[in-house]
């Protein structure tokens, strides 16, 4: 199928994009990489009257360091994220998770900001962003505001980005020297995650000194496995200790049941994948 008719604009600055959003009202939709939006339009699950293509705004692309943070422009492609040296050194977890997103063609077009703003609970980048305590910079009519990851994801496909606003950058604290692993369980190549676990771990002399763990698709929003994080800190990174701590991975989650998995099975996966992710990240 082909999409319903819409008007199309391609602004070249954030200011122009915000103006287009104001002019377009409720019925305008932002187009980032289009790898979720275009299938939705094709299937006529949405029929916006105006598409605002963010692809022509250079200031929204790229990765840079800013003091203790790494700043990623919202329109930076998954492909560019997976190859960036700054991210490899300081925010390895987002890179590990991004490598598993969909397939190479989709990673060439899809963007970090687009995926996070779409907020699909089975998407792979929200859980690492939450675990990494990323900050989201949102531009609107009254300038920019910054939202913590814990407040950004509100519900299924719902974020703190308000009407007339757009996500411009994602700011990650540096996790230099931390190990990272994204363990994803899906049915076939390029399928959505049934459950996935994002873990980044700091090990000092064989002892886990800090841990951040986020769960994908264990609720309508990404969930932080705080009970596992606290259980890990101070432990030596042995298989036994990690598996024991990972038993708490499903605490505080509310997974759905669907054709792929029931809630019990998702909870089981969360525990198993957390163990694997932490061991790999600590290795």
């Amino acid at each position, binding site marked *: *199928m*082909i*999409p*319903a*008719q*819409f*008007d*199309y604009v*391609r602004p070249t600055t954030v200011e122009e994009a915000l103006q287009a959003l104001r002019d377009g009202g409720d019925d305008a939709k932002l187009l980032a990489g*289009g*790898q979720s939006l*275009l*299938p939705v*339009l*094709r*299937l006529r699950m949405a029929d916006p009257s105006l*598409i605002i*293509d963010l*692809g022509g705004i250079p200031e929204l692309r790229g990765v840079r360091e800013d003091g203790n943070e790494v700043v990623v422009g919202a329109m930076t492609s998954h*492909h560019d994220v997976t190859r960036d040296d700054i991210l490899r050194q300081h925010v390895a977890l987002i890179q590990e998770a991004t490598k598993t997103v*969909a*397939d*190479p*063609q*989709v990673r*060439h*077009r899809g963007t970090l900001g687009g995926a996070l703003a779409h907020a699909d609970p089975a998407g792979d980048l929200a859980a690492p962003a939450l675990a990494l305590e990323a900050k989201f910079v949102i531009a609107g009519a009254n300038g920019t505001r910054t939202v913590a990851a814990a407040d950004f994801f509100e519900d299924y496909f719902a974020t703190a980005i308000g009407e007339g606003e757009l996500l411009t950058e994602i700011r990650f604290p540096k996790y230099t020297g931390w190990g990272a692993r994204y363990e994803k369980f899906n049915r076939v*190549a*390029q399928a959505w995650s049934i459950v996935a676990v994002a873990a980044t771990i700091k090990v000092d002399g064989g002892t886990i000194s800090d841990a951040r763990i986020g769960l994908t698709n264990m609720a309508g929003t990404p969930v932080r496995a705080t009970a596992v994080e606290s259980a890990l800190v101070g432990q030596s990174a042995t298989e036994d200790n990690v598996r024991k701590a990972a038993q708490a991975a499903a605490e505080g989650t509310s997974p759905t049941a669907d054709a792929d998995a029931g809630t019990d099975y998702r909870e089981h996966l969360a525990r198993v994948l957390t163990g694997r992710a932490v061991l790999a990240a600590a290795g």
Partner: protein
Amino acid sequence: MARIRTTVDGLVYEDDVEPRMLLVQYLRERLGKTGTVIGCDTSNCGACTVHLDGMSVKSCSVLAVQANGAEVLTIEGLERDGQLHPVQQAFHDNHALQCGYCTPGMIMQSIDLLGDNPDPTEHEVREGIEGNLCRCTGYQNIVRAVQDAATKMKPGAAPTAEAGAKQTVAGGGA
């Protein structure tokens, strides 16, 4: 309507298109480049894969207007002076197809993969073509073909179609 100017397989085309027109529709219905096929409605199958500014994309998931100012390379732009591209030849030599429907996308994605990784392992080939579905072959001969092409393309035999002679074609065959 939006005015777009694109270079497709070395020729420049200018056309007015509806913003909702998909790149794959533009290629097939306006330019008659039916070598690029549509295999699904869900962005899964990869049969419509083309290169957009040198990177593989699913042309069902790109609007024609987004290709404005860009260079597109399709399966139809690979042959040079009657010679198949080494990846096309390797698919032929290794019988890497049965019905052939996935082949244009498989070949375009394989060329992208080899540009990135000229000597992929079997596992890397399988990962590299994970966005392309084949329902006939079980992938065995496809993987063999990509690895065969890799050995034959060494060293430095990257696709050169993007560098082809350009001339403007008004109306784009509409």
